């Protein structure tokens, strides 16, 4: 209770300060508003977190009109407290969960209290819980999943009872929640998965169970931990797509078929000429998911990259530079009457409407995919050379078939070299405005990368017919949105000038994140862990390894140990091992990630590390009787605990302005409240 009280009061204190948009609130607050307005958008994270934020805002009377343009914008009289409060409440559960988990794992109240204290008085955990962010929601689900898993492990001798089922199902639900907020939830799924595999392995070795029993156990877990989360996860997406049915800023990332679902999109109940004809103005979309429109602009390829001609790229946003005009081989613009339809096998010339250059390819290496040829814009006013000719083929079509707008998959075969127009999906460097590379591939295999469809089609000489595009089914939408998300995630590469955080910075609390305010006059909040807490965690990791090594060597060599020692080493190896695994799973993968990383990515791992600290330090204090005789060892234990508590409290007193806001001069100037606390040069407060 005490833990809960302290936890809620630290998190909810000064919640509404500062009254302006802080850091990533600009994204997640905005996306919450999109849900309230039912506008379609694109984000690299799954939708559950933003849906909950939107819901919390809706319940607390926020009307979704605040634009969230950039950090620092004043909220004025918008109801933003609901969204912040929701996140803070979820964040307040973390120390409580930590308390319960450690209690289950170690059966020691002291260990649990140490773990909870570390989290309650960590400035970083407080700060990250107080704003409209996905992280408190994510961490809530992670911890809840771990807690239910640990509880479930405790039920192992009461299989198939109600409480057994309850905790099993609860684990599954929380897993779905964690994955539904961010893909980082995958790590906790792996943790639970490994734990379950270990559990099944234990059951398999239990010769008193028949194979049928084991099959039952397996099926029960498969249902609750695989099937159920999957269903919930899919449901989340179903709700996402049903709620967001208006066209918005995320349209261009998706295929033509996908866009036709959205109200307000120009493909929704579209009406255009049905068959492609010569003289039409069209946009051409790559069929690869998140493939983009065939695009060109006035800029040339830079020197050293193939021929110095105009760039041709694929671009994800709608833009007038995506418009192309379909011409015959010889230009005969002066057509009268109905224009001829383009048919399978016809030779066409594609002229870029804005720059009047022809789509062109030649035997130069493509800029990134060196096995392919370069595609450029060439010629002027439609006069070019023989390299501008492309043969149009409808996939699966025969000679003479007309090209259906939206529905036909077409390929463009280059006449002179025999290669096929291809979008490699690689992002061009700065000179190409970070658009996607378009090449001409000599490998003629039919892949979505080499197939295109005609999306917009404008020809005033042809009658417009209302087209109902084949509406994609739900699974297709789900798959497509996932692929688009993964593309988006890997596309978040660090930019040159941006501050770039490295994973090894994190455990040592090397550098924080500025949430709000830079200058002396502003209200500043700085996301940084309480250094005392974090360095205790770091030291405990080393301590843990030493203790486990000593304990296991002693067992392996067969030294006779007392009953109590054996229990301690079991707690260390089993309970500590689980937490260690959790820490590793939430930390190690970041080293291999190429995307941009931030300090706050470490927080889930930090939760595990704090729980491990509680467990390790408790056993360390209890093992004092190895060196000291009974009364002294008891005193040592008490002094150690008190000292720990005092140092955490005092450091919290010192560093609390980091989360509750600072004003006045910066820390390296004398008159500041934080003077003398800038222990590392890299801290920026």
């Amino acid at each position, binding site marked *: 209770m005490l833990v809960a009280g302290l936890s809620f009061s630290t998190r909810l204190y000064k919640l509404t300060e500062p009254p302006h948009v802080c850091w990533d609130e600009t994204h997640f607050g905005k996306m919450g508003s999109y849900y309230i307005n039912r506008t379609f958008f694109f984000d690299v994270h799954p939708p559950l977190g933003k849906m909950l934020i939107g819901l919390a805002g809706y319940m607390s009377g926020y009307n979704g009109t605040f634009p969230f343009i950039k950090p620092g914008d004043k909220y004025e009289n918008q109801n933003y407290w609901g969204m912040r409060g929701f996140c803070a409440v979820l964040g307040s559960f973390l120390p409580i969960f930590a308390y319960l988990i450690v209690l289950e794992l170690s059966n020691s109240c002291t260990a649990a209290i140490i773990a909870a204290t570390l989290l309650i008085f960590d400035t970083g955990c407080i700060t990250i819980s107080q704003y409209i962010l996905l992280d408190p929601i994510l961490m809530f689900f992670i911890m809840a999943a771990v807690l239910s898993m640990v509880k479930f492990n405790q039920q192992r001798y009461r299989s198939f009872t109600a409480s057994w089922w309850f905790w099993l199902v609860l684990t599954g639900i929380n897993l779905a929640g964690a994955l539904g907020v961010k893909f980082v939830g995958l790590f906790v799924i792996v943790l639970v998965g490994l734990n379950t595999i270990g559990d099944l*392995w234990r059951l*398999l*070795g239990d*010769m008193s169970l028949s*194979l049928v029993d084991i099959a039952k156990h397996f099926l029960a877990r498969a249902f609750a931990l695989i099937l159920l989360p999957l269903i919930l996860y899919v449901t989340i997406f179903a709700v996402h797509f049903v709620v967001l049915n208006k066209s918005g800023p995320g349209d261009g990332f998706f295929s033509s078929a996908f866009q036709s679902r959205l109200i307000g999109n120009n493909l929704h109940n579209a009406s255009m000429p049905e068959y492609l004809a010569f003289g039409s103005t069209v946009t051409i979309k790559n069929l690869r998911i998140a493939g983009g429109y065939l695009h060109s602009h006035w800029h040339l390829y830079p020197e050293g990259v193939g021929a110095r001609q105009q760039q041709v790229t694929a671009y994800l946003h709608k833009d007038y530079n995506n418009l192309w005009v379909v011409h015959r081989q010889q230009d005969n613009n002066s057509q009268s009457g109905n224009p001829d339809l383009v048919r399978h096998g016809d030779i066409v010339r594609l002229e870029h409407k804005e720059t009047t250059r022809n789509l062109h390819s030649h035997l130069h*290496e493509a800029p*990134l*995919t*060196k*096995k392919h040829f370069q595609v450029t814009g060439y010629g002027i006013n439609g006069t070019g050379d023989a390299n501008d000719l492309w043969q149009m083929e409808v996939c699966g079509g025969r000679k003479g078939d007309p090209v259906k707008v939206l529905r036909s998959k077409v390929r463009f075969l280059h006449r002179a070299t025999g290669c096929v127009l291809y979008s490699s999906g690689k992002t061009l460097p700065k000179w190409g405005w970070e658009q996607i590379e378009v090449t001409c591939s000599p*490998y003629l*295999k039919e892949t979505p990368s080499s197939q295109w469809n005609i999306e917009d089609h404008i020809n005033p000489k042809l009658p417009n017919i209302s087209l109902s595009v084949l509406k994609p089914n739900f699974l297709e939408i789900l798959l497509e949105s996932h692929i688009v998300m993964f593309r988006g995630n890997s596309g978040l590469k660090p930019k040159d*000038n941006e*501050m770039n955080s490295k994973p090894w910075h994190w455990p040592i609390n090397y550098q924080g994140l500025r949430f709000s305010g830079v200058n002396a006059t502003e209200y500043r909040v700085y996301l940084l862990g309480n250094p005392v807490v974090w360095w205790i965690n770091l030291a405990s990791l080393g301590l843990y390894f030493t203790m486990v090594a000593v304990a296991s*060597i002693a067992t*392996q*060599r*067969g030294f006779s140990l007392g009953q109590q020692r054996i229990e301690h080493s079991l707690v260390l190896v089993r309970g500590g091992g689980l937490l260690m695994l959790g820490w590793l799973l939430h930390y190690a993968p970041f080293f*291999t990630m*190429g995307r941009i990383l931030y300090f706050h990515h470490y927080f889930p791992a930090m939760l595990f590390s704090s729980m491990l600290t509680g467990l390790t330090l408790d056993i360390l204090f209890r093992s004092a009787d190895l060196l000291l005789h009974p009364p002294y060892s008891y005193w040592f234990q008490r002094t150690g605990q008190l000292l720990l508590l005092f140092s955490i409290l005092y450091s919290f007193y010192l560093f609390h302005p980091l989360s509750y806001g600072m004003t006045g001069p910066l820390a390296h100037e004398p008159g500041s409240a934080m003077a003398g606390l800038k222990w*590392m*040069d*890299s801290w*920026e407060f």
Partner: protein
Amino acid sequence: MWKMLQLPLVVTAQVDLLLVLVSLLAFWTRLSHLSYPNAVVFDEVYYGQFVSLYMKRVFFIDDSGPPLGHMILAFGAYLGGFDGNFVWNRIGAEYPTTVNVWSLRLLPALCGALCVPLVYLLTLELKFSHLSALGAAVLLLLENSLIVQSRFMLLESVLIFFVLLAFFSYLRFHNAPSSSWSRYIWLILSGVSCGAVVGVKYMGLFSYLLLLVVASLHTWKLIGDKTISHRNVCVQCVHRVLCLVVVPVLLYVFWFYVHLSFLNRSGPHDQLMSSAFQASLQGGLSRITRGQPLEVAYGSQVTLRSSVSQPIPCWLHSHKVNYPIRYDNGRGSSHQQQVTCYPFKDVNNWWIIKDPGRQQLVVDTPPRPVRHGDVIQLVHGMTSRFLNSHDVAAPMSPHTQEVSGYIDFNVSMPAQNLWRVDISNREAESEVWKTILSEVRLVHVNTSAVLKLSGVPLPDWGFRQLEVVADKLFKAHSSSLEWTVEEHRYGTSQEQKEREAELHSPTHIDVDRKISFWAKFVELQWKMLTVKQEESEHKYSSSPLEWITMETNIAYWLHSSTNAQIHLIGNPVSWGVGNLSLLAYQLLAVVYLLRRRRGLKDVPDGVWDQFVCLGCVCVGGWLVNFVPFLLMDKTLFLYHYLPALCYLYLLSPALLEHAHTHLLRYAHQLQHSLTHQRALCVGALAVLLSIFLTYRTFCPLTYGSPELSAHQLQGLKWRDTWDILYRRR
């Protein structure tokens, strides 16, 4: 004593004829016609340049791997009397007669050939029969891609050789009776080859780690053995740690020691290194800086080099051109003289250090050295402008302050030209500002901003030189803030004209400046790991997942006039056999594990241990040599897969033997097992035969002769994705 020596003296020698036979065949396949083609083949063009530099003892940095591999290649060249006078610029360029091609390629080919008997011995050490050993050796012997890779001046065969040697000698040690002392020779040999593995390529690190894991598993068992005394256990553990950890690490450092003591002349990559490092090389910087005064004093004339070498090394520079009044985007500037960073030596790089309290620009006798914390002014030598900064946005990085040579336009923009000297490595060096050694920050006194190289090239008005700014919000440890004095002399002329003449004259005088080996080692290692080359896709590069099915090949060489060509193409049949056995092993292991857990022991414990050991070495070896590539962001080629492939070839026959002796015997009725075993033998023979036939088929592409017609080449294109070249006639 005399009893030991019994007459007659008898020497008994056991010769494994099979082993001799496969070794001879291996030498024949790898070494015959080694000097054909007499032209630069594929990556020889890359390694060759380093061999040349070794011959000339010129310093270079190569980020692709530690120096042992290059040294081995260079040793081969040295044996052949290569003088380093050949320009490696183009694949297919003919070698002149002065270059002994045979000796250049000899060592990798030898290593490649020795892999075959090693695999034979390794299989025996894994406790499988001679027949399996022969099978593994034949698979390796007839693998076209391994033959191609060994026959040229490339490093994969060397790497594979050392990896196999390390595992073989470790297992020899492990299997030897614990009483014999000679087994420690094997342990040391294992440690030495581990050092060599890591020294040849960084990828070897993973194989080394695998060996450590296997060794620590064995040691863990040893610790659990309660029949051995505590003391004995400690001694054994210490031996293992010494041989398998300490020896490789020392050797690794030793390779660098040899590397650095060989390469003592300045060369093309000098500029990536710190001034102190460069000064230790003959020629280059040391020729210029030899004998400069050490301590920077008031009145010193200096060039200031930025400590970052990204994008290129450069020196603080100014010239008689002002910043444009307005930039392209409409922002205004101070219109004062430009200060930039210039990547070439130039007389405009000279600056004079002035005491703000005095007028003179010459050094006193005795000189007054500048110390940490002193406030100075910097005067540009040629234009006499003061280095200045103020609250005006810099041209390219507008969040920072502009740095200029101060010109008084009478526009209420006063001079702010005081800089405080902040020596950041004063603990390691000294409080006094020293040439080359001290890393200095120049802190602007008025604004406490720090002089920084932003690295952004200026537009045409700045002659594309690099922008220099003063930055207030800086990260604590960034080398873009550090500057070192590189060239230095005491100024003697007060008059501007004389001073200009003085600046144009070269510096001289003589003192030797030493930098310790450790400092050099750490710096070089750090640079090798952090230097990033521009990664781009190569025509023949491939992704790791394509290697398993051999989707791509690499064209190594094409005759300048005919269709004769060499490709890196593996033997498709053996490739398939390897993949199959990998799958089969995993399936079998899962079935065994599950059944053992239920108390059903299909095979006796001894055989089970043998099976597990096989998996640890072979499947583990394949994993550690393959999985890391999946996470890598580099340009990768098919030849990166070859080490992993060798493990599969080691696995296949052993697994077959296991199936033959245990699986078929236990899993079926007795009367059937004999026919099954026979069928298996016949099947294995048929596979071996087809491996031999495919080897023969692809020989022309492996050895580059005889020349094939376009039609025949078309027939060899077994996969659509292979690139085989045809000459148009």
